[in-house]
């Protein structure tokens, strides 16, 4: 039974990495948000499962926050933002999808090696879960690096945060305060960025970061 618990936890963590790859692969804003909601849902399951396995009721709260905030409210709000901004069509990536995917593979391989070496003493499942969490973080950063659009950068940022929550839920005994504060910080960041997006667009008629760079005189 113990083995089964761990297997399910493992599978859910792997599912999170898979959804990160799906985020990397998506080129459309609306489907990007749908996949992001899916990732948050998988995160909910993963954290909920950890709560069940570890008998840690406070993790249920984390799971609930992830579900309500990230799987429902934020994607819904962002999709409204996207529609109002009129950018629910294509988003361009820097340097092609296949290259991005290859870079993503490299990130996963790297996090595997790092975790295997850094935590050689820990039991294999824990360290592989941590390796998955690190992969999700790196892939989230990769999304932020490869996308030009501000909204997809928000998605990348929150994907990074998903990875952190996964790591925290796996490591036993994370205080609830930290989680709540992290969740709220994301919410605040979302609101701030959301407000800024509209202000930016009002001024520059675009949410392309390139335009902002141009305005600052950082021509490439």
């Amino acid at each position: 039974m113990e083995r089964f618990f761990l297997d399910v936890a493992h599978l859910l963590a792997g599912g999170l990495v898979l959804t990160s790859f799906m985020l990397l692969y998506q080129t459309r804003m609306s489907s990007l948000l749908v996949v992001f909601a899916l990732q948050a849902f998988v995160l909910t399951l993963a954290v909920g499962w950890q709560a069940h396995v570890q008998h840690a009721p406070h993790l249920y709260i984390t799971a609930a926050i992830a579900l309500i905030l990230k799987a429902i409210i934020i994607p819904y709000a962002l999709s409204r933002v996207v529609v109002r901004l009129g950018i629910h069509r294509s988003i361009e990536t820097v340097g092609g999808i296949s290259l991005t995917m290859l870079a993503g593979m490299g990130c996963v391989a790297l996090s595997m090696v790092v975790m295997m070496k850094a935590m050689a003493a820990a039991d294999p499942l824990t360290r592989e879960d941590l390796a998955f969490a690190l992969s999700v973080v790196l892939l989230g950063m990769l999304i932020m690096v490869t996308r030009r659009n501000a909204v997809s950068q928000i998605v990348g940022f929150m994907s990074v945060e998903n990875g952190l929550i996964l790591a925290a839920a796996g490591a036993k005994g994370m205080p609830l305060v930290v989680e709540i504060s992290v969740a709220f910080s994301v919410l605040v960041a979302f609101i701030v960025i959301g407000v800024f997006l509209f202000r930016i667009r009002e001024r520059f008629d675009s949410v392309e970061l390139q335009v902002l760079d141009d305005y600052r005189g950082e021509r490439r």
Partner: protein
Amino acid sequence: MVLILDLAVQGVQMLAVLALAPLLLGFTRKVKARLLRRQGPPLLQPYRDLLRLSRKEVVLAENASWLFRSAPYMIFAATWVAAALVPTFATGLHFSWTADLIAIAALLGSARVFLALVGMDVGTSFGGIGSSREMMFASLAEPAMIMIVFVVALVAGSTQLSHIAIFMQEHASLRVSLGLALVALVIVALAENARIPVDNPATHLELTMVHEAMVLEYSGRHLAVIELAAALKLLLYVSLVGCIFFPWGIASGEPSPAAYALGAVTYLAKLAAGGFLLVAFETSIAKMRVFRVPEFLGAALMLGLLGTLLLFVSRTF
């Protein structure tokens, strides 16, 4: 005596896949029609189509070569042999040691090469477009398939399908890399069987068609054989998914009539479930642009590679 029994079971398997293939096709068409709120053709319509085709005369293009006339049989034979080697209701069939999963993938590759060649035989532009796109898809789908084989083989310690099925029955566990391989295999299966979103099996006269473009010049009995081979291929992939990822019910160990009966019933249930899921997926998604397909298949290749990588790095995945 044992040998004769073995051969008989093997023969039953070969005939069963042949007999069931059009039924699966009919089932998917019917379910699809129902999901779209249409009445749909009867379940047995594919059999009638095959019968009708085989009774019609062949209209052969003037410059068609010997390859064009013999290729349908080669395509059919390669697909049939491959389908006969996948455990459906029982493992360890007599000839199952003939070829492993890599060889089955390569047999399907032979069938595809012949199909792509005959697409170019008459020298029409439609045939060429089909062949060229088919080979482009294959150049990504085949490595993806090999990577899936790697994942499965590394988990089960064998590339032999019977062994894989028995291993999966005994050591059923949730593994991340197997999950990745399943997603990748579904993508490859969609592409190989020319299903939506890669190709549309129901259209003609569209520049987006691939499989239908290659067989455009065929008629009569040749077309019947090719259609049967295509149906067999669909059955093969559904059986493959069932045998690797959902091996429950497949008769293994000591052969007994009860085990075979159970295997047959679960096999039919798996076919029905697989067909239903396929159609449900198809009706909920639109066909892709042709040059989106390489990205789709590339994703399968990446998933397979990721799964293999995970297994190389650690055996606990």
